[in-house]
């Protein structure tokens, strides 16, 4: 099991990957990717039981992860490659013609790690619920994880799935909400307020945890606690407080970096703030 310091080192490299990938194709979504770098490292290098060398769509005998907010594909691709699902050098092809690393994730080109397409928001929780139901039918003890943006919770389908999961005791499911209060048009509270997400999920019948998503120690703690709460009759949600763009000072905390690529100059600046720990791709 990785130490906190090791996980932080990986996250620093993942953040470098994100900035370089988005800069290289002059498009993509750095803000949410940077904000979720810590939890994705904690997940893939600590909590998630997975088989990078023998990836299967079916996910038999392992945990499954679904990225519902598919636009933060840079962080997922980087973490998958750093975890050994596919060569790190493939990150250089992100969003380029013929690459399996599409702008938004898809299983179409058999990219190891990706089981279903996402990009159109709000669908991943339902998919996760289905995968969790299949695990129960198949007698598989492993868990299903999903990740969502807080802006994404404005999609009605999320609440259909939330109602279903609690009503049907889908208790082998852990959903993580990237609670950064930022979406394309501004702060979530200004665009369309979510109200109290904690109260909402409790009212829907979920077990609710909170954690600091840009504190590696707290990510490890939060995921570990969430795991302990599974299989007790309720689905589990983690409200994960993050800053959009975390780790790059001029992006941090601003919704304006949701879907804008840094210029070459800004990229040099950003990389100077992020330690190269595992070697750039």
């Amino acid at each position: 099991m990785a130490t906190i310091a090791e996980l932080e080192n990986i996250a620093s490299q993942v953040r470098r990957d994100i900035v370089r990938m988005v800069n290289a194709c002059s498009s993509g979504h750095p803000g949410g990717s940077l904000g979720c770098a810590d939890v994705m490292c904690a997940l893939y290098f600590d909590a998630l039981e997975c088989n990078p060398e023998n990836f299967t769509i079916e996910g038999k005998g392992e945990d499954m992860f679904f990225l519902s907010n598919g636009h933060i594909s840079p962080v997922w691709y980087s973490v998958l490659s750093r975890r050994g699902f596919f060569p790190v050098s493939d990150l250089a092809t992100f969003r380029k013609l013929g690459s399996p690393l599409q702008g938004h994730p898809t299983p179409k080109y058999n990219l190891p790690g990706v089981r279903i397409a996402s990009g159109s928001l709000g669908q991943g929780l339902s998919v996760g619920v289905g995968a969790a139901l299949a695990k129960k039918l198949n007698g598989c003890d492993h868990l299903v994880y999903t990740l969502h943006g807080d802006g994404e919770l404005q999609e009605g389908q999320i609440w259909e799935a939330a109602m279903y999961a609690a009503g049907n005791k889908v208790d082998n499911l852990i959903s993580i909400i990237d609670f950064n209060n930022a979406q394309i048009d501004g702060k979530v509270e200004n665009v369309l307020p979510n109200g109290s997400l904690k109260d909402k999920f409790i009212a829907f019948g979920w077990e609710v945890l909170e954690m600091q998503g840009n504190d590696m120690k707290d990510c490890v703690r939060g995921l570990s606690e969430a795991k302990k709460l599974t299989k007790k009759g309720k689905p589990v949600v983690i409200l994960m407080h993050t800053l959009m763009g975390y780790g790059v000072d001029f992006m941090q905390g601003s919704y304006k970096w949701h879907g804008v690529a840094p210029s070459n100059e800004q990229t040099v600046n950003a990389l100077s703030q992020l330690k190269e720990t595992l070697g750039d791709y």
Partner: protein
Amino acid sequence: MRKYTILGSNDTRSGFGQGLLEAGKRNQNVVALCADLTESVKMGAFKEAFSERFFQIGISEANMVGVASGLALSGKIPFIGSFAAFSTGRVYDQIRQSVAYSNTNVKIAGSHAGITLGEDGATHQILEDIGLMKMLPNMVVINPCDYNQTVQATIAAAEHVGPVYLRFGRPKVPIFISEDTPFQIGKALMINEGKDVTILATGHLVWEAIQAGEMLAEQGIDAEIINIHTIKPLDNKAILKSVAKTGCVVTCEEHQYNGGLGDSVAQLLALNNPKPIEYIGIDDKFGESGKPEDLMVKYGLKSNNIVEAVQKVIKRK
């Protein structure tokens, strides 16, 4: 004209229910999901036989599509059922991303399709579903013609690996296809060989086409009638072979012909062998409340309408 006997009468949705039960017996990976319309879409027998494989999703069709996709990833063969209006149009983006683009092994069942849903009116009478579904890459589109064919189509859908849209209806319609008639996805079924005109019919309009064929025979017109139960992939070979012989076509469907079978056939002919074509179908209109039979008459989907279309298309040869 080959003689067809009415073997009975039943709704095609009941054929789906029977086929689903049979598919469930044959393969334990078959699961069914419903959005509060279990009896209407005839999933009750499956639910009773395999309660652990039946999921009541509630009135949330979008979630139903996603849950089905998740189940499919782990090797299940989910059938999702609702009225065709709600299992296709209402959840088009969910189907597009989580089913078609992701190529998940989900079977979408659309019951109560078309105007013959009747009294509920236009909100429920979807006439665009074939077009919506056939435009999606990876999607197979099947519209069987009677109870027996729907049983077989449902079993075939379960055996096919990949997304399938299966369309069927509410009212009782004649059964005229024998239980042992072979059914193969994408393979058109010859109903009657003829030489003067090709009538391509889908769904319960095949029966109207047969009746039209008998009326045409009395006028000395020898109609070739082909049942196109699979709209995608279309049996191009069978259609082109027939049209090469007859030189003209009438398509028959309970659907907008813009986007429906008529549209698919017109494209095929335009690219390969342009010949006169006439459509029996809905011409850019919404339906309305009424008895199914009265609506069939008002919207021009009856055998006499087919006869008129044949007379017209033959003159254009």
